């Protein structure tokens, strides 16, 4: 693909990203089938804005996020990062020392606050790890930075929290530590994988507000992965919907929620319970479907469940993502 320099405020551009996992097979045997966890996904994240990646579990959103931080190596595709110093870099291609350097630009916040902190390491050890691993600053600098960051994420006074162990913290506090750890090396971009889904409701808002505040303050963009449309609406300016490894719709948040075009998005929106007993909602009924995209058929992935599908949808390849105006993109033949 062409490598153009993006001067339009794009921070990250993902093109044709794929991740296929072999099923069966091993050291001496080739796998016969594959899980097409992420299949040809493309999107862009603007500077100063956040993109919500929405879909049910197993749709490939977490895998996509992990590829952006190179926890998985993409099977194919590009992840173009617009870096202030070096210009454009393809994160999918970098290796070795260069990869280590670019890890400073992209960080991740994990879903489970109880698993993302090493139980034997103190808060200080956890937050300082990126600095230590990247060899930034000496001990005094590092202590100061950790203390400063703990203050910023609301764990004040920093001195009392610095040397606590994870089991002495609540879920919300642990997630704040995870946020501090992600921010300490000054990334431009953070992948947040359902960071609030395991937290209590009254804590959730605090953490989400903190993330927004920090995003504004430090000019960080998020790829916010979630299954909860309401949370995505609150946190993100744009939303992309994934289904079985494919992107089916992408638009600005309010536009997507007001005028969903893809049948899956419509079904999703209609299925969200409303916190108001007087309002009724009409669910768009779709048939039950398969869980994992193993060796998917060559037609539209949503064909089996779609209430509007017809023979055309069955006889042709999976539709491409097309712009229907104003940046609202859909992958559907029926729109």
């Amino acid at each position, binding site marked *: 693909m062409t490598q153009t320099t993006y001067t339009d405020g794009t921070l990250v551009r993902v093109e044709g990203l794929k991740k296929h996992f072999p099923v069966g097979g091993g*050291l001496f045997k080739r796998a016969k089938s594959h899980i097409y966890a992420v299949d040809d996904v493309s999107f862009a994240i603007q500077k100063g804005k956040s993109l919500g990646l929405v879909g049910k579990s197993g749709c490939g959103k977490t895998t996509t996020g*992990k590829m952006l*931080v*190179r*926890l998985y190596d993409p099977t194919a595709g590009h992840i173009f990062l617009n870096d202030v110093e070096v210009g454009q870099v393809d994160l999918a291609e970098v290796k070795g020392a260069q990869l*280590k350097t670019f*890890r*400073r630009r*992209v*960080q*991740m916040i*994990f*879903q*489970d606050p109880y*698993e*993302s*902190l*090493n*139980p*034997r390491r*103190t808060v200080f050890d*956890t937050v300082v*790890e*990126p600095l230590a*691993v*990247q060899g930034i600053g000496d*001990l*005094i600098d590092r*202590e*100061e*930075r950790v*203390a*400063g*960051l703990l*203050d*910023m994420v609301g764990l004040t006074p*920093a*001195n009392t929290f*610095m*040397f606590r162990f994870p089991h002495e913290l609540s879920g919300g506090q642990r997630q704040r530590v*995870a946020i501090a*750890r992600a*921010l*300490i*090396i*000054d990334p431009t971009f953070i992948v947040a994988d359902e960071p609030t889904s395991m937290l209590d409701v009254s804590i959730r808002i605090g953490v989400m507000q903190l993330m927004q505040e920090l995003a504004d*303050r*430090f*000019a960080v963009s998020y790829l916010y992965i979630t299954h909860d449309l309401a949370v995505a609406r609150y946190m993100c300016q744009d939303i992309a919907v994934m289904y079985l490894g494919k992107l089916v719709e992408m638009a600005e948040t309010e536009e997507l929620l007001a005028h969903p075009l893809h049948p899956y998005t419509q079904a999703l929106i209609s299925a969200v319970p409303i916190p108001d007993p007087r309002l009724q909602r009409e669910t768009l009924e779709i048939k039950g479907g398969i869980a994992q995209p193993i060796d998917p058929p060559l037609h539209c992935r949503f064909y089996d469940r779609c209430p509007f599908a017809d023979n055309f949808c069955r006889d042709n390849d999976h539709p491409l993502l097309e712009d229907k105006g104003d940046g609202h993109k859909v992958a559907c033949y029926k729109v």
Partner: protein
Amino acid sequence: MNVIAATTSVRVIEPLWRVRLRLAWRSFQTGWDIFRENPIGLIGLGMIAFFGLMAIAHPLLIATVWPPNVYDPLMGYDKEIIVHPSPPTWIPNAATEIQSLRPLSRFRHILGTDPLGRDVLSQLMSSTQSEFALGMMAALVTVVVGTTLGAVTAYYGGVIDMIFMRISDLVIMLPFIPLMIVLGSMFDFQMLHLALVYGILVGFGGNTLVIKSQALTLKVKAYTEAARVAGGSNLHIIFTHLVPNLLPLAFLSMMITVTNAIFIEAVLSFFGLINIRMSWGIMIQITQAAGYLLTSWKYWYLMFPAGLSISLLCSAFYLVGRAMDAVVNPRLRKR
């Protein structure tokens, strides 16, 4: 505004090493409280303390109350007594049982003398030190080998895993005592060599599988992934995140290793395969070589104290290991 500029306004006061010391002491105290709850552990610890006292007492006694020419465990010889081995001097009818030149004090030989005229109690006490050393050394080697092997094979998987697991299978399959007998006849074994060989063989053996399976669960934990996202090298992840979380598990097997090492030494000494001067096993071996082993209860003092010491010290470590279970595995603690 980047993170670096925003954080250099907070001062941290206490030096890091002192904090770590304080934290280590606190976690030790917690561990001790839990350990204390189980009477088994305290009994085991008490027995170990008893043997420890024995080991310390020996050089003190030699220096003060026991003349070395009589009481040295290797070279001593009691000229006062005509026939060796002789029974303990405090039994009733000592005068008739023991043929001596002069009447002897009741405390002269609390456990009698061996066929070569040396004081049995002295032998018992002096051996304690080397038994401890053997056990500790073997345990240490096992922990180091087992943990490293488990962590590395789990982390890298693939070919490395396969090779080491097959070696491990081989080691498990080999019958241990015949192997040691063969090795003992080929090489000149000292205590230290035995500790090393035993430690390595056990390190490769069955326990590694347990450690490896634990390491496999740790490998996919979010904090390991976070370390990789921060840019941590493979070595860093293995030794900072995997190994410390594996050590408690390895520690448990350590206790069992001490038990077995002491026992194996006794067996090998019995077969005369170890080139060491004095140990509890040697004591039994001498008894057997002089033909007193399978005779009646008359010569109980020749082998019973040594045998009992072996059993007691082994059980002591085993009991401590069992009590450590609750400390190491939080789920086994009482609510």
